[in-house]
């Protein structure tokens, strides 16, 4: 899938991968949902911790408010200490402070001088919280961020409280402040966020792996389909075999139908070509015989007819062979075991050339050797070569088969007169007859050469160790 296969079987770069397409969609969705979930959850937690932070501060303020009274001098005192122990530990990060509002017309100068930090939590030790000038109205609760005694940022809330002084009956206004180090709020949030992103990261990685596995497993049948197609092309199988998922099965069935139809069309073409041959040759035979008859008076005419009939016959043979071969070389998935073909042809040769008393030896070929193509074409090629060898041999003809470099090689040797090197090419190319004495249309080798070329093979003529001609058919081997 990732490597598209061109017609020549050469891998090219992928032009849009199905796997990439499926994966990228899933990955974008996984990433987006993890980011949104992480941001939402940490935000929610942050708000929760913040609310808790200020609720505690407010509890301190409430306790301060409830316990605040004035002493005889009109100074604020707490009736009871605050319950939270952190308020007593120095610099614990949690503080309270009570200021007297400045613009109150207070008479006691000492008290007035000590307006800021009149009362403070023990945790503040000798420090005073510096707070921005602000006077909350009655019942209002104000929040501020201030710098703490150790330089850290503090979250702070304040409220103003008015108390009537029993001594002079004048109301006194105080500013009650509770503050805590913001780290008490941010630390749990960052701890939570760290754990949260870790967990979400693990979840995301798991999802990505699952998605990849899903895509690979889901697309695996396509790999299998490709392998099966390769087998059809190489001739190992006639049709697509094997179990495929329900989504691919119709495709496989359609493809098999196309293959079957293709084979059927070729078979029909062959039959029709054969019928055409029959239809043409019978009248040609009649003409030919009539022209040969000794009763014929016009010798010139009969000579012309004999010549033309010969030409017509050769043309019919030649083009029929080509048409049939062209049709069959296009069917993928055909394979022909070589041994039965050789045996059948050897039987036929022994019978047809019975008068020549030849010793025709078919070396036992490996039974596993198969030709990648049609049986009829192999018979045609080998039949012509063998027939020639039998016509020219003195006593012996030998056939042997082997595979070499992924090709099938069928070698036909004879012990006849052989063929001069310069004649060999001419015999193949022009379908010429090397010697008019030996009967035959002379087209045999030209047809063989045509067929061999259609299959991408070649025919080689050489000297035979038997003394005559060696013809080698080099053809595609079916794996």
């Amino acid at each position: 899938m990732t490597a598209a296969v061109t017609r020549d079987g050469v891998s090219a770069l992928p032009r849009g991968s199905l796997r990439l397409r499926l994966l990228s969609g899933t990955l974008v969705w996984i990433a987006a949902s993890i980011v949104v979930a992480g941001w939402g959850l940490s935000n929610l937690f942050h708000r929760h911790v913040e609310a808790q932070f200020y609720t505690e501060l407010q509890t301190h303020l409430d306790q301060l408010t409830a316990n605040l009274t004035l002493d005889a001098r009109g100074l604020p005192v707490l009736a009871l200490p605050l319950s939270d122990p952190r308020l007593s530990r120095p610099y614990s990060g949690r503080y309270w402070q009570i200021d007297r509002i400045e613009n109150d017309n207070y008479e006691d100068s000492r008290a007035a001088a000590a307006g800021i930090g009149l009362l403070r939590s023990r945790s503040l030790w000798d420090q005073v919280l510096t707070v921005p000038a602000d006077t909350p109205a009655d019942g209002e609760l104000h929040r501020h961020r201030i710098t703490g005694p150790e330089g850290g940022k503090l979250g702070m809330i304040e409220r103003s409280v008015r108390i009537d002084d029993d001594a002079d009956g004048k109301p006194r206004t105080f500013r009650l402040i509770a503050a805590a180090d913001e780290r008490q709020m941010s630390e749990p949030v960052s701890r939570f966020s760290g754990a949260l992103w870790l967990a979400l990261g693990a979840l995301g990685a798991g999802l990505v792996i699952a998605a990849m596995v899903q895509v690979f497993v889901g697309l695996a049948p396509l790999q299998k389909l490709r392998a099966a197609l390769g087998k059809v092309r190489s001739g190992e199988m006639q049709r697509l075999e094997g179990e495929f998922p329900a989504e691919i099965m119709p495709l496989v069935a359609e493809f098999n139908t196309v293959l079957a139809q293709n084979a059927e069309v070729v078979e029909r073409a062959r039959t029709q070509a054969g019928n055409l041959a029959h239809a043409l040759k019978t009248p040609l035979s009649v003409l030919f015989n009539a022209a040969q008859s000794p009763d014929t008076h016009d010798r010139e005419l009969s000579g012309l007819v004999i010549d033309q009939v010969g030409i017509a016959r050769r043309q019919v043979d030649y083009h029929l062979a080509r048409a049939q071969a062209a049709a069959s070389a296009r069917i993928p998935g055909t394979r022909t075991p070589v041994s039965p073909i050789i045996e059948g042809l050897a039987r036929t040769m022994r019978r047809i050339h019975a008068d020549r008393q030849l010793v025709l030896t078919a070396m036992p070929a490996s039974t596993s050797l198969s030709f990648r193509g049609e049986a009829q074409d192999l018979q045609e090629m080998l039949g012509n070569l063998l027939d020639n060898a039998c016509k020219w041999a003195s006593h012996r003809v030998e056939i042997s088969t082997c595979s070499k470099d992924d090709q099938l090689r069928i070698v036909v040797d004879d012990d006849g007169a052989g063929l001069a090197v310069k004649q060999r090419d001419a015999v193949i190319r022009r379908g010429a007859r090397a010697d008019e004495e030996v009967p035959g249309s002379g087209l045999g080798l030209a047809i063989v050469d045509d067929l061999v070329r259609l299959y991408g093979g070649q025919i080689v003529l050489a000297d035979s160790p038997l003394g005559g001609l060696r013809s080698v058919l080099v053809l595609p081997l079916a794996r």
Partner: protein
Amino acid sequence: MRILIVEDEPTLQAQLADGLGAAGYAVDAAGNGVDAHYLGDTEPYDAVILDLGLPQMDGITVLKKWRSAGRTMPVLILTARDGWHEKVAGIDAGADDYLTKPFHMEELLARLRALIRRAGGHASAELICGPLTLDTRNNRATVDGQALTLTSHEYRVLAYLMHHRDEVVSRSDLVEHIYAQDFDRDSNTVEVFIARLRKKLPPRLIETVRGLGYRLSAPQ
């Protein structure tokens, strides 16, 4: 020698019959597979020329039926279909030779002679019996090199006896093999031909085996 021609094209059938007749054979012809099968199954032919594309029953089927019924006469397939797979199929069905159309009549006759000769176990085209020589290639009989003048019926009788040299050939065998099927047969005419042959041949070459028939053999 009696030949069956199976060919559905009438003109070609007639040409074949003429050609074979001129070569000294007695000829029967059939134009379809069913007739061909019947004739080949019941008549004693010395050879059959068989087309493959036949109406009613194709040639290969006819041939297979003959062979499975034990009919062993030589069969030459004469067809327009010249693919090697067809030749292999024809030979495997029991044919003895294969010739494709269009064909030279000379080649057909030569192959037919060879088939008949081989069927009789003879290696050469010249059949020899003592001083008598029969050249099947040109239908010439010679005695000590002197050509004999023979009528076509005389030639057929002599050729049949030569092909079955040293065997006793019954009068009815001779009738079966020298006449075509539709010929008005009369076994007495065989005696006439034998008598004429004896006059032309050296003495005692053709003996009469009482009650059985005739035997051609070289004098001791």
